[in-house]
């Protein structure tokens, strides 16, 4: 088969950089973001929507009003919790795509505890109990994929995704079946959790601050873990060169399982927050997990897997998700369309990363290989 090179008189060639350019580490993600927003607006335009109107109205509502900001924060909290866990897992090249399911299991654990196991417990008992149970449930949901990967090298992307679908079905089963509420007028919900189990909020808003505090604390704790502990070091070494890590005596199985369990547990915490702080009952699974598990991937990657930067990117993506909700309300755009932003941002990010390690050089190709070119 013949493949002809493009007949342009100039060609682009990639050359490996010798040194890292500091400013690029910030410029590339920001540039990719900008590009993604431009592309998204083109897509919206093609569908007959005025992108400027869409962006303008939604962002002004989010950043311009206090309810808008509170809404943003509500979305950012679960994002941050999930993303912090993912930052650790991805650093180890453990691709945990199951945060959605792990979050749901956290919600299930919290609901079960609040509704059935200790419905009469006082707040200072039930609330910590829910968080502990949620962490364990989320971690437990990540255990099977973790072990399969550690022992048999089974692709964790697929197994964690399958666990997501199983989690959706589990919640469906519960809300249509044994946990169906008595006072719900035929809707597939559980009953509302008792007042004592509802998380306290910042006065004047809906923001459930215990989860917020947990999220910020976990970001800091994860940063310390990754930069200052032996475990974090091993994660970075293994993620950077698994063969060398093994030869140096690092046990990959242990690392994989710890990373999965931690990220699963953090997602479980997010699930507790969503249940006890936002919805206060178990409902349709996708209404609870709302794509947080997937959007958290963007949050983590945009922050280049740095837990502290995750705080900023979680706020940004929280704004995006809030905008998604508003777009649905005002412009009748399906909520799932927010994935367009997710997908575009991630694609542009991952494409732009090439610039961090390579330089683009213009070469006079048509004139012959033996003639040199100028560099860009």
């Amino acid at each position: 088969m013949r493949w002809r090179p493009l007949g342009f008189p100039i060609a682009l060639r990639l050359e490996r950089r010798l040194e890292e350019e500091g400013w690029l580490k910030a410029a590339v993600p920001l540039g990719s973001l900008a590009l993604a927003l431009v592309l998204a607006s083109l897509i919206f335009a093609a569908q007959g929507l005025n992108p400027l109107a869409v962006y303008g109205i939604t962002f002004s509502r989010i950043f311009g009003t206090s309810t808008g900001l509170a809404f943003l924060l509500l979305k950012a909290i679960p994002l941050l919790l999930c993303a912090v866990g993912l930052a650790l897992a991805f650093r180890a090249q453990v691709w945990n795509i199951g945060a959605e399911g792990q979050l749901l299991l956290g919600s299930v654990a919290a609901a079960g505890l609040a509704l059935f196991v200790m419905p009469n417990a006082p707040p200072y008992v039930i609330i910590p109990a829910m968080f502990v149970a949620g962490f364990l449930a989320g971690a437990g949901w990540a255990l099977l994929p973790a072990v399969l990967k550690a022992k048999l090298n089974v692709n964790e992307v697929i197994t964690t995704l399958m666990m997501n679908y199983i989690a959706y079905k589990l919640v469906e089963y519960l809300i249509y079946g044994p946990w169906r509420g008595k006072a719900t007028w035929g809707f597939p919900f559980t009953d509302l959790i008792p007042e004592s189990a509802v998380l306290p909020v910042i006065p004047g808003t809906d923001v459930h601050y215990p989860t917020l505090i947990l999220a910020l604390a976990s970001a800091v704790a994860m940063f310390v873990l990754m930069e200052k502990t032996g475990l974090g070091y091993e994660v970075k070494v293994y993620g950077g060169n698994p063969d060398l890590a093994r030869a140096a005596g690092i046990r990959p199985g242990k690392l994989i399982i710890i990373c999965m369990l931690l990220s699963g547990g953090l997602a479980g915490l997010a699930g507790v927050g969503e249940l006890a702080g936002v919805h206060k009952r178990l409902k349709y699974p996708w209404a609870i997990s709302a794509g947080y598990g997937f959007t958290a991937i963007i949050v983590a990657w945009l922050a280049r897997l740095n837990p502290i930067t995750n705080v900023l990117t979680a706020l940004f993506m929280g704004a995006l998700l809030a905008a998604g909700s508003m777009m649905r309300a005002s412009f009748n755009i399906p909520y799932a369309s927010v994935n367009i932003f997710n997908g575009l941002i991630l694609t542009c990010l991952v494409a732009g990363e090439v610039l961090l390690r390579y330089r683009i050089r213009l070469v006079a190709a048509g004139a012959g290989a033996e003639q040199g070119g100028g560099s860009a």
Partner: protein
Amino acid sequence: MSLDVVGHILHMAVRGGTPLLLGAVGEIYAERSGVMNLGLEGIMLVGAITGFAVALATKQPWLGLLAACLAGLALSLIHAFTTVSLYANQVVSGLALAMLGLGLSSLMGRSYVGQPLPYRLLPQAIPGLADLPVIGPALFYQDPVVYLALGLAVASWFVLYRTRWGIMVRAVGDDPAAADAMGVNVYAVRYACVAFGGAMSGLAGAYLSVVYTPAWFEGMTAGRGWIALALVIVAFWDPLKAILGAYLFGATEALQYALQTSLGIAAPLLGMIPYAATILAMLVAMSEALRKRIGAPAALGKPYIREERVL
């Protein structure tokens, strides 16, 4: 269970397995050339909406299917560009594509939800064979796309193992540096394989919306894209084994409905079966791989960079 029921399950297994087969065959080529495309779920969804919309507008189901192929091809080229030419991380790029496809299809499909599709592709009976007991209706009384998928699977096996193209693909996925030194255009081969994979996934999605259901609703692929990826691994990157695997997975779907009526287990619990079966199948496959020392194409997941700095 009576023979009738078995025959019925087989019939549904073949139908239900067809989109998985299409997706898997395409992805086998992509991964054999060294590129993992995790975006199948998104590409299938885009294929589904494209197929539906075009079939509705042109009143021709086949045009819808064709348009879906092209849409899938176009989307997958994005992934090919970032991973082959820009050396991007294949896992993340694929996931991004899946999300993009999810979002795009939702946006594009918002006015098509609930619309019926009056232009159908009816099952064609193969004379004589269709009358065989049990397997007759299952294998020989299906819509044309089922036969197309089977044919494509067999043809792709043949191309992969008995033609020059197949040798080139396998070489590129096993040792791209060697293939390059032999004059094979590694980049072109990878682009072509990823594009083929995208076209197949687009077709798979359109099959769901134009023939199988037929209808459009958000997220209608319900994870089939991911299952197709699992199928590639379970079939050890062999198109013929993928046929068997696809129909087995299709059977788990069919089993859901059969068990529900006969045993009365709640629907959501039974709904877990295909996904749990996928995990189980991967467990078995990887244990086998460990035992027999066979594995993925050696260069899978790694970008090929020709002018490396001499270490």
